[in-house]
């Protein structure tokens, strides 16, 4: 395990006991996970560059003394992202269910960037326990889109609804309507290759989703 307070220079705060607190914290995770966090925040900076730099992140935890990925030091719970342009994306405030489309799309953009580097990403559509944060971990690598995964399926369904107005039920079941909407999104984003088997294709599709999300543009 290593101890850190910033990811690639960006401070990471803790708000669960005191919202708005900007005291630097001593987080822990494995070196390999931290290396992926660096790649992740560089992806996030690049794909959201129109918002300016990332001022800070807020997390509910990385290493936590409990079973599973958190206990192994290979997981992150993301609560909030703040950019220098004043924009925020706040899973803590349930932006996945916001009445404002641009916030939902921004949430999906952050969600997509998490999925580029981590497996699994569990979001507000996954279950009630993840309504107020995005969990990202190392389990189940490599990153591809699996039709049998509830995590991937609800993300795809929510993405298609929020960017294309697909009207899908976000139920985690990959049926013909979800397949059709996914194929349309893949085509409109100009993705070649199979996101279900190719990490490169899936990451390219996630980048496309993120760009549209940060720009608040339909697909």
């Amino acid at each position, binding site marked *: 395990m290593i101890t850190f307070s910033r990811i690639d220079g960006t401070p990471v705060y803790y708000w669960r006991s005191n919202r708005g607190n900007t005291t630097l914290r001593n*987080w822990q995770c494995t070196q390999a996970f931290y290396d992926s966090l660096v790649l992740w925040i560089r992806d996030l900076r690049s794909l959201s560059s129109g918002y300016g730099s990332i001022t800070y992140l807020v997390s*509910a935890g990385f290493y*936590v003394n*409990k*079973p599973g990925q958190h206990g192994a030091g290979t997981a992150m719970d993301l609560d909030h992202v703040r950019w220098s342009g004043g924009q925020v994306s706040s899973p803590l405030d349930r932006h996945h269910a916001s009445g404002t489309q641009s916030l939902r799309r921004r949430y999906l953009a952050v969600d997509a960037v998490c999925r580029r580097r981590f497996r699994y990403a569990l979001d507000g559509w996954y279950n009630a326990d993840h309504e107020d944060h995005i969990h990202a971990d190392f389990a189940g690598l490599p990153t591809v889109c699996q039709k*049998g995964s509830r995590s991937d399926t609800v993300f795809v369904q929510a993405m298609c609804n929020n960017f294309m107005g697909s009207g899908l039920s976000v139920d985690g079941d990959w049926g013909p309507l979800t397949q059709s909407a996914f194929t349309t999104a893949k085509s409109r984003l100009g993705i070649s290759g199979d996101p279900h088997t190719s990490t490169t294709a899936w990451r390219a599709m996630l980048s496309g989703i993120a760009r549209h999300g940060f720009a608040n543009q339909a697909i």
Partner: protein
Amino acid sequence: MVDRRLCRRTFLSLTAATAATAAVSAVGGGGAAQASPVIDRAAGPVGGRVLALSGGAWVLADETGAVPTRGLDGADVIAVAAGFVAVGAHGGKAVIWESADGLDWAAAGRRNEPHAVFTAVGAGPRGTLVLGSLLSEEGTPVRAVAAIRTQSRDWLTLPVRGLSDGLAVTAVTGHADGWTAAAVDLHGSVVFHSPDGIAWTQGATVPASAVRELVGDRWTGNALDDTAPVRGTLAGDREVVAVPRDAHAVGGGFWLTRGTLVRER
């Protein structure tokens, strides 16, 4: 009350147990044990030492050295309890192991679901209770499960009501009135009480702390906001423990810091 017996009960051989006892004695004397190996993960205290993963193998260790164990190859041991009971998972299935000495282990109970894990075990006047979860494909807890060993020595599954299905239980302890368990969420630990291991009611919360061990009304663990080593009582007291700031609570007075087991100064 009890719905079915866990499958596959096995027993230790007397020969293996005798040999293992000799090996444990060597650790205590500081002679034949491997000196201070790097500990990757600690399951918990057993017999005054710690069952720990070192270099891919489970060892019985303390701050002076370690000896290898047998019977846990490929296991993901999560917790141990007095009476030489270890719990965790193997091949995705929740498993209970038993030992006579902490060195030779054998599977004593196993659930058949493809994704499940036992995460806590505790002993008390009414037997030994094991708690865990059925898991989603993504590894998140979806339903609490339990097993108990009473005087019959057989492990029996228990139906569970009232434990939060989405939380992993990290500690359980027995007492005259039944059982107390702790589970970690994003804000701290949630404490549950049960007279029988079946029906649970939520009690106190332990803010901003991940409880790793419960002994009576006292707990040890790590802070959620900066992973500091902490301990306290269920009445609400909390203090930082005098061990290295990055130390992880193991239980039994042990802490794990940078691959080394330490005790409070």
